[in-house]
């Protein structure tokens, strides 16, 4: 039985696990964007906070993912459901690229443009929504893209704590020394990563200011 036959026969299960995988990645990315973009904006406007925030996000990034899943396991409400825990861990990992790119994007807006916008009497909010965010959007999006690609890979490890996703096939394959099983998890995961990379990259180019 080759890989294609295997995939065809277990189509429903692979699809189910792919959707679980997408759910983990999608929810954690949205959370990371909801937290990371405002944080990035904050540190772009308040340079004093820049070092502690980026430093913190950096430290999280250096914790090995299995260790982080392990650390979080005994936490009361979180540990109840593996999925919650996986989403939190993935969100934490996704924060750094989102925060860093938001910061870089906003700081990268031409100072002459910001100055003249302020000089015309834009309020801080108008400046943010009409000038800074639109001009930084492609850089911010590229941070989100990096976060998604990292998450797709990391989410396979979430299966180790029983959170589901394509990692389940990989871990099962490892335990049973079955390469087909490993590939049946790894290949859809790779395609997910490539697809996310491509589509977000396309959006990013569309939004890049001339």
């Amino acid at each position: 039985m080759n890989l294609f036959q295997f995939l065809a026969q277990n189509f429903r299960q692979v699809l189910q696990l792919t959707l679980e995988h997408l759910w983990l990645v999608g929810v954690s990315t949205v959370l990371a964007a909801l937290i990371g973009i405002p944080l990035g904006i904050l540190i772009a406007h308040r340079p004093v906070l820049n070092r502690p925030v980026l430093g913190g996000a950096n430290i999280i990034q250096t914790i090995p993912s299995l260790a982080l899943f392990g650390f979080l396991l005994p936490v009361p409400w979180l540990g109840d459901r593996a999925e919650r825990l996986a989403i939190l861990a993935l969100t934490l990992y996704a924060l750094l690229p989102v925060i860093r790119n938001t910061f870089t994007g906003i700081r990268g807006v031409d100072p002459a443009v910001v100055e003249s916008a302020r000089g015309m009497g834009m309020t801080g909010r108008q400046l943010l929504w009409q000038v800074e965010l639109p001009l930084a959007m492609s850089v911010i999006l590229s941070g989100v893209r990096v976060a998604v690609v990292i998450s797709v890979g990391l989410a396979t490890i979430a299966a180790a704590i029983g959170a589901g996703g394509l990692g389940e096939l990989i871990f099962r394959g490892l335990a049973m020394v079955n390469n087909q099983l490993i590939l049946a998890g790894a290949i859809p995961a790779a395609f997910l990563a490539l697809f996310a990379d491509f589509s977000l990259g396309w959006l990013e180019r569309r939004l890049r200011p001339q």
Partner: protein
Amino acid sequence: MAGAWKTSTWSRSDVAVNLICWADMNRDTRDEPAIEFRDVSYELPSGQRVLSNLNLQVQRGETLVVLGRSGSGKTTTLKLINRLLRPTGGEVRVNGAGTGQRDVIRLRRGIGYVIQEIGLLPHFTVERNIGIVPSIDGWPLDKIRARTQELMQMVGLESQLAPRYPHQLSGGQRQRVGVARALAADPAILLMDEPFGALDPLTRDDLQREFLSLQQRLHKTVVFVTHDLNEALRLASRVALMEAGELITVLSPQEFLRSTDPLAAAYVRAFRAGTGLDTNRGSS
């Protein structure tokens, strides 16, 4: 103000006119200069002094040109007026009130601002760029559109340029958009920081000429920064000469050419040398 009554014998209509003006003056504080620097200093956080004890009045409807070499503090002076910078000493007054005592957003929307790098929003079309101040001020869309079209005509931009983006324009066209944008909400005061500095000589000449004819119609209070004496003499009602953060002197263009002030004379000499007229030095 009562003293004005004694200065001459007036006909009855003169008196009537003056009474109206007097009432106006009281209401709009027209007796105040449009902009006033009172003993203004500006220091950087590092303690470096950028401006020292600046005292200067800009009258309503005049074009005051601030002339000085690069680094002399011209841009700083301008940014103190719309409070992009805050004085570290003294007070800047606009229309009779300190700029620190009023809402800074309202202050800025009442002051047009044109900078050398133009600062057009790269993701806004020409039309949206020109309409920014009316738009953030909440004008209805049709009024913004009408005003934008009027302004494009006023500064000599063809209407088919409206949907273009700034990077699709020539330097001269961008600068015209910058001027139109500054005029959009019809502010009484216009700040211009080397607006024509980056243009080729012919385009600059065009824009200077159009600036003069616009100013003849609009009578804005203009503070115009340049390092170019030719531009200063051409556009100014008065020239304020700056050097190393200090105001050296304020002179009309005619006075400037005859001035015995060493720095002013040095500018005139350099200017004449540049035009090949230095052999005429001393004669008129």
